[in-house]
């Protein structure tokens, strides 16, 4: 099997059954043949079973009426919509939880990871116990606990906790007012994108100017002003529409405003506290992997602790941190499927209802797998790109 070591030298003549190349191919053909045989066995059984149980196959059901409610949707959805739209709603919910979870657990995890290295013994110990407590217990248990706490510890809608007359906190979730839909909103979104792009342009320019002249520029403030300012100006130009939709108690529940549901809160909170424990360990080991001289040199240059962390230690630690962090991001995305256990309508939950209603298990399981593989591969592609970007450029 050691084929390439022979290189380009002429190979000694051997009997065909002793030739490593031929043996290699024979072995491969046998294995692939066996796998193929197994696949054929399973597929033919499945076909037979489907025919016997009179289960339809194919994806026609996707255009039929779904007929089930979905509690939380980012796009307009009603039970009269198709299965395809129901599954899309689930997919968007999965993405929403995954993106928010990734952002929040990165922030919290980084803070705790740095906290574990604090010179303050008490803070370091608290962070250590946070990590141990949350990562040694199944995520599902945390989800159940948080969900039950939210739905049982908070009062019903009639006795909702009222914060400043605008927020209503009850076991139905957190209701808060939102602006009434206005044609200017999409343009404000565009303004936000332009603001972000402009902030990046300013950052590049400031970097170049500092490299050339040594003059620093308050990039963070300028960037924040751009990101907030551009949509604000668009809003002013659009006549500053300020009509709000207020949540009001009608009957047994609130009407108007918008709501963060308890299922969503419990899922996001559980994912974030659980994953941040792992993120903290990754960040800590990334920082510990640095040579002590790095932080000492930064101190010797007169940088503050914060500056040393931001300018010297973190950029180097990132190289150690990014690869394991990628797998944590993938874990968040995959773990968001636990939503089904506490009744949040994510992709798996939506598809599971579809399976129960249509009986078409195979097509639906394939949809789940394709969706998660797409998301997983996109995240790893992005993180690999980022990893290459921050990698040490050796000359």
């Amino acid at each position, binding site marked *: 099997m050691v084929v*390439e070591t022979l290189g380009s030298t002429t190979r000694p003549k051997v009997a065909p059954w002793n030739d490593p190349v031929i043996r290699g191919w024979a072995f*491969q053909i046998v*294995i692939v043949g066996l796998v193929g045989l197994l696949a054929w066995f399973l597929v033919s059984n499945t076909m037979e079973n489907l025919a016997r149980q009179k289960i339809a196959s194919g994806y026609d059901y996707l255009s039929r009426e779904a007929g089930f409610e979905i509690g939380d949707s980012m796009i307009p959805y009603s039970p009269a919509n198709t299965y395809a739209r129901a599954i899309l709603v689930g997919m968007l919910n999965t993405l929403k939880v995954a993106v928010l979870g990734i952002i929040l657990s990165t922030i919290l995890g980084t803070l705790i990871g740095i906290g574990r290295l604090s010179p303050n013994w*008490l803070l370091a110990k608290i962070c250590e116990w946070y990590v*141990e407590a949350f990562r040694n217990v199944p995520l599902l248990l945390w989800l159940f606990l948080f969900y039950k706490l939210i739905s049982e510890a908070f009062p019903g809608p009639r006795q909702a906790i009222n914060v400043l007359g605008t927020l209503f906190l009850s076991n139905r979730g957190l209701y808060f007012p939102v602006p009434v839909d206005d044609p200017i909103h999409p343009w404000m979104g565009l303004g936000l994108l332009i603001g972000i792009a402009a902030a990046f342009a300013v950052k590049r320019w400031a970097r170049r100017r500092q490299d050339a002249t040594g003059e620093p520029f308050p990039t963070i403030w300028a960037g924040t002003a751009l990101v907030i300012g551009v949509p604000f100006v668009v809003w002013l130009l659009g006549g500053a529409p300020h009509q709000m939709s207020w949540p009001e108690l009608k009957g047994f529940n609130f009407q108007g405003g918008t709501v963060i549901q308890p299922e969503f809160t419990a899922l996001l909170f559980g994912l974030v506290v659980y994953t941040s424990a792992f993120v903290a360990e990754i960040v800590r080991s990334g920082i510990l992997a640095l040579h002590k001289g790095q932080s000492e040199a930064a101190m010797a240059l007169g940088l503050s602790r914060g500056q040393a962390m931001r300018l010297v230690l973190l950029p180097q630690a990132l190289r150690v941190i990014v690869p394991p962090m990628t797998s944590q991001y993938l874990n968040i995305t995959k773990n968001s499927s636990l939503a089904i256990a506490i009744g949040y309508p994510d992709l798996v939950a939506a598809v599971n209802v579809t399976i129960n209603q249509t009986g078409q*298990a195979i097509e639906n*399981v394939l949809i789940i797998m394709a969706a998660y593989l797409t998301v997983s591969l996109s995240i790893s592609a992005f993180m690999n790109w980022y990893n290459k970007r921050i990698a040490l450029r050796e000359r």
Partner: protein
Amino acid sequence: MADVLSANERQQLPPPASETGALGWLRKNLFSSWGNGITTVVLLVAIFWLLTSFLDWAVVNAVWTAPTGQSCRGHGACWALIHEKYRFIFFGTFPYNEQWRPLLAVIVMLTMLVTSADRRMWNARLVWIWAVGSFLTFLLMLGQIHIPLALILFVALAVGGVGMLLRGSVAAPAELNGWRTLAAIGAIGILLRLAGVLPPWSLAIAPFTYVETGLWGGLPVTLILATYGLLFGFPYGVLLALGRRSNLPLIRGLCVGFIELIRGVPLISLLIMASVMLPLFLPSGMSIDKFLRALVAIILFSGAYIAEIIRGGLQSLPKGQFEAADAMGLNYFQKTMLVILPQALRVVIPPLINTFIGFFKDTSLVLIIGIFDFLNAANQALVDPNWAGFPSEVYLFAAFVYFCFCFSMSRYSKYLEIELNKGTRR
């Protein structure tokens, strides 16, 4: 005496009191600067407030025994619920009078795991311990085991074959003949059985009443799924990892495709697949137990993850090891079994234990397909209307049990990492 000491010695004063002892420690670790001091004070106040309110709830105002949940209302934690339900949480719906069996099974499994943790036991004896222990575990859980003759013959063939392969190049002729005889007995027996010469006889070991897997629940289920998921996933993961590192393109493609497919999807989707699709895969008339279906999904899942860990071990070996084995004239099998795997596996033991911790937690997902693992049993204990409204107590108790298991395993893995690296550390 004082003037005997030289001037130099007389000046050796002890360090200032503020730098040593408890006071010094406090100064250095808690009050090294103003910012630090403020942080410490704020944290102390927060901890004090949290701890007192928690202790108020969990100890001072707690109810330890009560006939029903009603008498817990208005008090602190209702530990009476745990007192009432602990057997259900630990053993689920296993017949109440037979619950000493899962208890014994858990003890047997824990003994096996703890024994395996001792490095002095890492030899052939361990195989026997696991064979006997596993048999006892399943006998206790099932109550009755019927082993068909064909299975015994198949095991004889498999054990003999594996023995021939593994020990072929190192064993003495007498030992090798033993393996060969075993394999031959198995092979001939299977042929005779297929030809109908041997009767469809089966060995029945039935000391207890039979308890079907649908009634299993609680801690033994969690332990069995995690342990045997990893145990069966391990050889499978080794094969996948070797396949991924192989020179043969088709084999490599198959293994990479399988590993990435499994690692790219959540365990829940595999469990759903196992519960709804596996029955369709089998020939009509054949059915497969729900518990076994979950175990199959976990084995597939663990195989892919173990493969990636073992690949890390394989990659950590210097190329010289492979080349030296080739130069010695060893064939692929000998090279892998005698040179590569012994070194690669040693490196991956600590990460494998971390994977086991992960599986121990992840088995809780089987509740989605309706299996009563430890977490699901805890969940079901909440359903009782007499005891409704005390989820925190049950979940905190379950969390505590999970924590004890996972925390001790992670400490063991840390210890082992240091212990195994002693040779390379200077």
